[in-house]
């Protein structure tokens, strides 16, 4: 089940701090997908106006002829974006689950932030974060 999770740092750079996917082939395609979805996310941010809702859903109707997948987005107050790409055939995944996954991601991300040795903007190399993401992905697949 193609699943990809990525954390993208705050603007203006918008480069990924962390990308993990299962399976690992076609990763480049996922990277590209994430990149394009960033635009949609930004669009939604600006459309929101003042009251920025914490959690946002992003459903892309991107359907490729060969495979379809859904892209979910989540933005924190500090404009750090989490993007998740899942296989459309994985219909078992419900909205709540996605939300809870994002919440877990967000929590782990704040834990990383608490680490004084972490400079915001660095790539995330935390082992704890990795293990959390792995377990989440196992759950989905």
């Amino acid at each position: 089940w193609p699943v990809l999770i990525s954390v993208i740092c705050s603007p203006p750079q918008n480069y990924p701090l962390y990308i993990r996917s299962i399976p690992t082939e076609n990763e480049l395609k996922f990277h590209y997908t994430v990149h394009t979805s960033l635009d949609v996310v930004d669009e939604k941010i600006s459309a929101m106006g003042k009251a920025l809702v914490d959690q946002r859903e992003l459903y892309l109707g991107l359907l490729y002829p060969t495979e379809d997948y859904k892209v979910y987005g989540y933005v924190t107050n500090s404009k750090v974006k989490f993007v998740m790409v899942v296989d459309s055939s994985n219909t078992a995944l419900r909205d709540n689950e996605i939300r809870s996954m994002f919440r877990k991601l967000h929590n782990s991300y704040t834990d990383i932030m608490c680490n004084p040795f972490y400079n915001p903007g660095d790539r995330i190399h935390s082992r704890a974060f990795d293990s959390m993401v792995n377990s989440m992905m196992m759950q989905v697949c």
Partner: protein
Amino acid sequence: ITEVCGAKRVGYFGPAQFYIALKLIAAAQSGFPVRIESIKNELPLPRFVALKNDSEVRYGTPAELHGVKFQVPQAASEKNSYKRTDEGDKQEPKSPPMSPICSPPASPSTYQRVPLSYGYGKSRTGLEQQHGAPYEVRHSTHQQDGPSSGNYGAKPALACSTLNRSLSAEREQQDSSAHYSDDPWRITEEQRDYYINQFRSLQPDLNSFISGSVAKNFFTKSKLPIPELSHIWELSDVDCDGALTLPEFCAAFHLVVARKNGYQLPETLPETLLPEYLQAASLKPMCDCTLFDSYSESLPGGQQAREFSRTEKTSAEEVPDNSALLQDGKKDDKQGIQIISTALKTIPKEFQHLTVKPAAQESNALKARPRSRSYSSTSIEDAMKKGEEPPTPPPRPQKSHSRASSLDLNKIFQQNTQAVRSGWLPPPPPALPPRPSVSQTEQVSEVELHPQMNRPPSQAEENSSAKKEVVLAQPPSKPARRKLRTEAQGLETPELSPTINVTSSLPAVKPHLPLQKQSSKQKRAIQTAIRKNKEANAVLARLNSELQQQLKEVHKERIALETQLEQLRPVTVL
């Protein structure tokens, strides 16, 4: 036995089978019938005939043991859950530096196990470390070895484990307590004391936190790569609040130390380093350790001295130099030594200030330079470190990788001029029991030497403990510093015979000195410090003016270019 334990059926000795087999051997040796039920009895250790050849064979085939995992017995674990580990064999090939003391006795006792069977199934899961209590067991058995190898069989397993623990407890109190620390993830008394003092140096209130940035600076001095420090932080900051409590700090420090000694960082925090565990454990040692009491009394004085020494570092020269010291580690040695000397001199100066000048001044300066503290204290310690070249080089080198070996950590380990300041004196891993004992004895002798000198040693200790970090920061400049070190050492140790020497300034601080001598020394020290500061100021002022000049010129150029651009622009537009 093979059949009973199931090995025949399965075709190999897995951990379960192995454990059962050993239990059965014990049973057989104590006269019980060889049956599954007999495992349930409390059995003494199985006795194996010690064969040196066998041990070598085992040494040679660590590979077969690698596949097998064992659970680490926890110090706090109940006797019942004392898991048996075969580690001995695996450990020995893994840690060749195991001192000669340990290995020969190891061979006979290698085969001794504490065969507790239940829970063996769990051994495969959740495994972290493979060191640990088995070493304890073995070492305790070492101790028993001499006197009564025969007694082994007589003691029931339970008693054995209690004996182990009591032995280890005893050993803790003795000098050879280093043996207890076979588990690299266990913190010994000296280590704990040292960590506590380090904690104090960063944060006087033991019950509160060290903030992230403070801790970061502190641990960065250990010169471990940032990712590793980041991982250590992740492991030790259990509540993920961005700050370290005392047990968290001890755990982090211990991990740093272990890493410096060449140990790989674990994926998860070992139980012995968990805050709850450390907190529980910390109560006891606190009571036992007499040194600690002396710490607490003398701490305020020492702390003050350190703080005040900061204020002296008002000269611009010192701060940049110190920071350079910290950062490059490649500073010119001479200069470094000079700075250190001024730093040291300022200490006695501080003392006088303590008595003479108003505290307000100091505290202002203090506030103005929170950063300089780390620099200054480190520089002082640096000098201190130089002084404390211990006589014996440790067998440590074998264990290390380049960084650890080059690193002053090694020296630090040995440097233990003062009991209080046991430096990074941590029990190095099972690998090097002799060394810790050496430093331990040093420590002990120091304690005896300075029974009344709690105050001075404490400040020195505060300083030196901070210094250790700087020394860490400057491995390259070691050789040059050595001289300073030996001097300092010679001076410190015992008499407070103050000489006009740079390093003497520290001993000079000792209140034992007659006030006169002290004040004249300090005066001299103050004067030299003043002179140096003035010189530094002059240099910097000159530098400043030169830079200003350059700045002006650059400004002019820029203006010229801009006007040119303006002139050209209308042309291009058209």
